[in-house]
C-alpha cells in the first residue's frame, strides 16, 4: 500500500486522544467536575444506559503493545487470553484508577473472569454483570431485556436517580449518530482508492471508545468532511479483511499495509461489530429497542448459530470486494479458535483465501507474522495474474 499517513488535523486529534488514554484530558476534566466515568467490557454492554445516567462510558482495553504481563499472569493465570490479562495488568497497575464502575456481560470465559478478578482485586465503587444469552430467539430477547432492565435499575439505585425515556432517547440518538458516521467512514473504504487506510480507521475507532460521543461525533463530522476533500489516496495490491479476536492496535494493521495490502474492512468487536447496527426505536420502548439492538447486533463468535456471523462476513467480503482474509486469533481465545475450521471452510467455498495467525493481544505484527503476511500477499498477487 502507499503508506503515507493522512495529515488531517482532526485525525491527529483522535490520535492524541489514543496516545493519552487512559488518562485523557477530557476524562480528567470530567472527573474534576465531579462526574463519573465507567469502564465497560465487551460489546454486549448497552452503553446508552450508562450515557443516559450522565456517566462517560469508556471501553476497557489493554496495552497498545505486546507486553510482559507478570502480575496479570499471576492473577488470571497464564491460560487466559492476553486481552483479559493486558486489561487486568493495566487495572491492577492503577492505570484505570479513575473508574467509578465496571460493567460486563457473561460473554466468554476470558471476559467474565476478567470482570470477576477486577471486582475482587481492584477497588471499584460500582460493578455489574449482565447475563447475555447466546441465542437470538424471542425467549433470549426477553431474558436479555430483563437483564438490561435490571442493569438500569441497579444503576438508578446506585446513583439515586431516575433514568427516564427522554434521557434514553437522547442517548440512542447520540450513539446512532456515531454509528451512522462510522458507517460513512467505512463506505469510503469501498472505493478502489480510499482516503483513509485501515490503520488510520482503527485510530478513529479507538478514539470512539475514549471520548464523549458528543465530542467524537463533532470531530468525526469534520474528519469526514476533510476526507472528502483530501487528495491523499490509499490503494493496495490486495484488498483485505481482518477478523477474529478483539484487536485494536493500529500498528498491527499498519504492518500489513506496509507490506502492500490494504485493509478495507474487518470483522472485529472493536470496529464493525461495534458500530454496525443502529438502535431502532420503532413502536417499542427505548429500553427494549436498546436490548434488541445489542442482542441482534453483528454477532460475536460466542453466539449460536454461528452461521449468522459467517453470513455477515461473506456479505462484507462481497461489499468491500475483499481478496483475502487475515484471521488473527489471540492464544486461548476459545470462541474464535473453535470457529476457525468452520469459517475457513466457508471461505474456501466462495474462493476467498484465509491466513490464520495465532497472536497475542497488542501484537504489532512483526517477526513471524510479517513473514507469513508477506507470503500471503504474494499468493494473492499470484492469483490475480
Amino acid at each position: 500500500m502507499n503508506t503515507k499517513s493522512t495529515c488531517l488535523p482532526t485525525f491527529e486529534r483522535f490520535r492524541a486522544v489514543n496516545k493519552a488514554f487512559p488518562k485523557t484530558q477530557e476524562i480528567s476534566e470530567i472527573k474534576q467536575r465531579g462526574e463519573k466515568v465507567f469502564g465497560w467490557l465487551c460489546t454486549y454492554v448497552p452503553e446508552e444506559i450508562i450515557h443516559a445516567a450522565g456517566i462517560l462510558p469508556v471501553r476497557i482495553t489493554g496495552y497498545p503493545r505486546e507486553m510482559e504481563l507478570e502480575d496479570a499472569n499471576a492473577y488470571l493465570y497464564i491460560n487466559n487470553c492476553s486481552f483479559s490479562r493486558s486489561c487486568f495488568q493495566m487495572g491492577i497497575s492503577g492505570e484505570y484508577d479513575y473508574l467509578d464502575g465496571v460493567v460486563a456481560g457473561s460473554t466468554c470465559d476470558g471476559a467474565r473472569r476478567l470482570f470477576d478478578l477486577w471486582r475482587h482485586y481492584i477497588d471499584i465503587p460500582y460493578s455489574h454483570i449482565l447475563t447475555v444469552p447466546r441465542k437470538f430467539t424471542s425467549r433470549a430477547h426477553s431474558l436479555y431485556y430483563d437483564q438490561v432492565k435490571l442493569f438500569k435499575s441497579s444503576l438508578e439505585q446506585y446513583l439515586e436517580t431516575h433514568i427516564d425515556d427522554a434521557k434514553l432517547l437522547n442517548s440512542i440518538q447520540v450513539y446512532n449518530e456515531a454509528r451512522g458516521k462510522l458507517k460513512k467512514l467505512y463506505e469510503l473504504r469501498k472505493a478502489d482508492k480510499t482516503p483513509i487506510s485501515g490503520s488510520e480507521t482503527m485510530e478513529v475507532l479507538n478514539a470512539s471508545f475514549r471520548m464523549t460521543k458528543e465530542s467524537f461525533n463533532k470531530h468525526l463530522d469534520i474528519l469526514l468532511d476533510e476526507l472528502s476533500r483530501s487528495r491523499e489516496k490509499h490503494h493496495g495490491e490486495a484488498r483485505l479483511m481482518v477478523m477474529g479476536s478483539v484487536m485494536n492496535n493500529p500498528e498491527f494493521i499498519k504492518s500489513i499495509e506496509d507490506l502492500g495490502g490494504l485493509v478495507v474492512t474487518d470483522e472485529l468487536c472493536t470496529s464493525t461489530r461495534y458500530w454496525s447496527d443502529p438502535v431502532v426505536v420503532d413502536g417499542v420502548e427505548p429500553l427494549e429497542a436498546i436490548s434488541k439492538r445489542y442482542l441482534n447486533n453483528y454477532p460475536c463468535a460466542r453466539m449460536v448459530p454461528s452461521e449468522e456471523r459467517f453470513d455477515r462476513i461473506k456479505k462484507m467480503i462481497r461489499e468491500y470486494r475483499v481478496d483475502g482474509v487475515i484471521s488473527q486469533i489471540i492464544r486461548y481465545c476459545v470462541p474464535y479458535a473453535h470457529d476457525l475450521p468452520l469459517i475457513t471452510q466457508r471461505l474456501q467455498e466462495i474462493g476467498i483465501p484465509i491466513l490464520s495467525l495465532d497472536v497475542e493481544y497488542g501484537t504489532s505484527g512483526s517477526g513471524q507474522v510479517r513473514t507469513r503476511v508477506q507470503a500471503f500477499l504474494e499468493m494473492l498477487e499470484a492469483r490475480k495474474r
Partner: protein
Amino acid sequence: MSSAGTSTKIETFIQTANLLSRMNRSQPGARESRTLYYRMLADYYNNIHRARQEGKLIAAHTVFFPTEVLYAMDIVPMHMETTTWLSAFLLKEQSELLAKGSELGLAPEICSPHRGVAGMFALQEIPKPDVILWSNLICDNTAKSGELLMELTGSPGYFLDNPFQDSPGELDYLIGELKEMVTFLEEVSGKKMNWEKLSEIIERTNKEIDLYREINELRKAVPSPMNISGYLELISADYLFPGQVQAIEYLTKLRDELKSSILNKEGAVTNERFRLMNLFIPPLHLLGSLVNIFDEQGAVSVAEPMFTRWSDGKLDPSKPLRSVAQKSFLIPERRSMYGPLKGPAIPDIVESAEQYQVDGAIYWAFMGCRHTCAAIKVIKEALNEIDVPMLTIDCDIIDPTVNSEDEVREQLMQFFEMLEDR
C-alpha cells in the same frame, strides 16, 4: 464410516470395564461398589453398542447436560468428554485423537477433551450419533464444540443455552430451552416424551442427590474411608446414569461400605498422614501412579468441593421439566465453575477445607480450562487465610506429553515434605 472400527472401540470399552470389574471382584478386600462402578461403565457402553439393534437413537452430548430428558425419551446418551477420557485412560489413544483434532484446525489452546472429541468423530471411531446436544454449561469449549461436531457427523443438533446467573427469570429461560429441546428430540426421534417416566427419574434423582450428600457427610470421618480414585468414580454415577437405578445401586453400596469402614475405623490408606482437598481433576492417565503415591505417603482425598458439593434443594417430581432445570442449578460444578465468582464458589471451598479438616489442597491447573484456572489465586489466598497451603500443578487431563509421572511425583513429594514440617 467403518462400522467395524466403531463397534470395536465401544466393545473394547465394554470388555475392559468387564475385565476390571472381574479383577476387582477377585481381589481380597476389594470394595463391591468399585465392581459396580465398572459394571456401570460396561452397561453404559453396552447401551450405546446395542442402540442400533434396539432401534434407539444415540444422542452425543457435552458434559453436565441434562440427560434425564434423554433417558425419559428412551434415547441413548453418549457423554462425549467421558468417552474421550476413557479412550485416553483405558486405550491410551489420546495422541491420535489430539493429532486428528489439530488436523481439523483446532488450536492447541482448546481444551484437550474437546479436541479429542472432534478427533474421535473425524476418525469415525465411535458410532455416528443421531443428534448432537451441547450447552454452554460449563464453558466456552462446551458452548462452541457442537457446530463443528454437527458438520463432522452430519447429524442435527440442539444447543441448550444455560443462563449465567441464578434468578427466577433465568430458571424460566432454561425451562423454555428444555421445552424446545424436547420438541426437537420428539421430531428427530418420532417419539413423544414420556412425562411419567421423567417424573420417576426426578424422584430417583432426589434419592441420588441425597445419597451424594450422605456420602459427603461420611467422608468427613478420620481416617478417611475413600482414596483419590474414589472421587472420580463417585462423580461418574451422575454423569452417566442420572436418576437411574444403576446410580442409586452404586451410591447405596458405596454409602454402606463407607459406613462400615468408619464403624471399623478402617482408613483408605494404612497410615493417614495428609488429608487433602483436590481441586479440579488430576491427569487421568496418571491416576494409577497417583493412587500409589498417595498410598505410599498416607495421603487421602477427603474433599473435592468443585465436583462433590451439591447445593441445597429438592426437586419436585410433579414438575419434571422444571426439576431438570433446577437440577442444573444444584450440581456442584455449576456452583464452583459457572456464574460469577462472587457467588458461593470460594466460601464453599473454604468451608469444605474446615469441615473436612484438610491439611493441604492441590489445584490441578488444567491448561485448557481457562475459567477455572483464573480462580486459582483467589482460592489460594482464601485457603491461606485459614492456614491451608495449596499446591498448584500445571497439567492436562488427557494429554500425557504435558507432564510426566516423575515431575508430578516430585512436586507432590515436596508438598508432602512441607506439610510434614508444619
